[in-house]
């Protein structure tokens, strides 16, 4: 086997081991966390509730329901998430290990409507 190919192979093996290792470490951490489900409803261009308070370190399952007749895009620069919510449908956003602080979110399709925030304390 050529030396370069061996190098490439060993490189790939290291990468694979690394990903397997990360996959193995991930679930155990998740199990140790508490999980909370929060629903946000978009109605008449507003988020309800507009402000959410959660404890730090908790895993959050955010369900965004769009009850308006136009599509919305749930976007948060702070949380690094963006997802389109079709009229009458809902989306799920998973958030884990949030540090204490304030995280703003808004509707990217209607950026002028009131922004909401998640406060982690």
């Amino acid at each position, binding site marked *: 086997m050529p030396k370069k190919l061996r190098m490439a192979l060993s490189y790939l093996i290291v990468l694979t081991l690394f990903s397997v290792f990360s996959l193995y470490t991930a679930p155990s951490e998740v199990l140790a966390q508490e999980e909370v489900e929060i629903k946000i409803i978009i109605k008449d261009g507003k988020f309800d509730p507009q402000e959410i308070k959660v404890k730090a370190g908790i895993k959050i399952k955010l369900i965004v329901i769009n009850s308006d007749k136009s599509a919305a895009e749930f976007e948060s620069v702070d949380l690094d998430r963006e997802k389109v919510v*079709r009229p009458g449908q809902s989306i799920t956003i998973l958030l884990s290990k949030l540090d204490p602080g304030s995280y703003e979110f808004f509707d990217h399709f209607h950026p002028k409507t009131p922004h909401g925030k998640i406060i982690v304390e």
Partner: protein
Amino acid sequence: MFGIFLITWREALEAALIVGILLTYLKKIGEAKNFRYIYYGVILAILASLLFAYFSNAVSLLFQGSREEIFHAAILFLAVGVLTYMVVWMHHNARELKGELQQKADEALAKNKVWALASLAFIGVFREGVETVLFLWGLLLDNGDLVSYYANIAGGFAGIGLAVFMAWLFFKGFGHIDLRIFFRITGVLLLFIAAGMLSTGVGKLIAADILPPIIDHVWNTSWLIDEHKIVGSVLSGILGYKARPSLMEMLSYFLYFPAVIIWLKSQRHDLAQ
């Protein structure tokens, strides 16, 4: 409206660069008559994106939980695979073409190779198309005030138009230089685009809670270059810039380059033997 313009411009620019490289390659080896196969790939990809958007309401019902993120990650990884293959193929061709350009041009381009080029064009455009069309579709569903509605759609199409025009200018300017140098420049460009896609895909898997971020934000350069503004948007589209990357995204981005280089080198070694 400007936000929409920025999004469609960025997505279309990547697609236009990929198509431009394929067209320039064919032109350089004297196979301009096979342009139509590339166009078939492009047209088919646009139709496929539109079809996807048309059924997207039904599709999105299937995308419960994190399936949407997983689907996007899968398309991104497929595109990374295709782009990497394209770079390796360009590299190989640029070496082969040394001095024997004319002779090669005299032989007809094998049909299966033409179809390979067409499918490259298809995947390049489909990946950007799905993203763009889904976004525009979301706006079309909107029944807000009509002025902003049309302004948004106009912005979206202006973005695509400008991207195609810019790519055309790029290839008009760079299309005349030596094929090997051309392949080197565009090859490097494609590697950056692919590395950006890889880390975006990894980011989607982090959002789906499949991969751990390891460290949430290694740094924060949003005060310097904000990826939601014009300069940051270009950098993010072409170089895969992210203002607040997680360690996992960073690793995938920076490990991609040595991985491809080692692959290229090992191939060169095999050819020499």
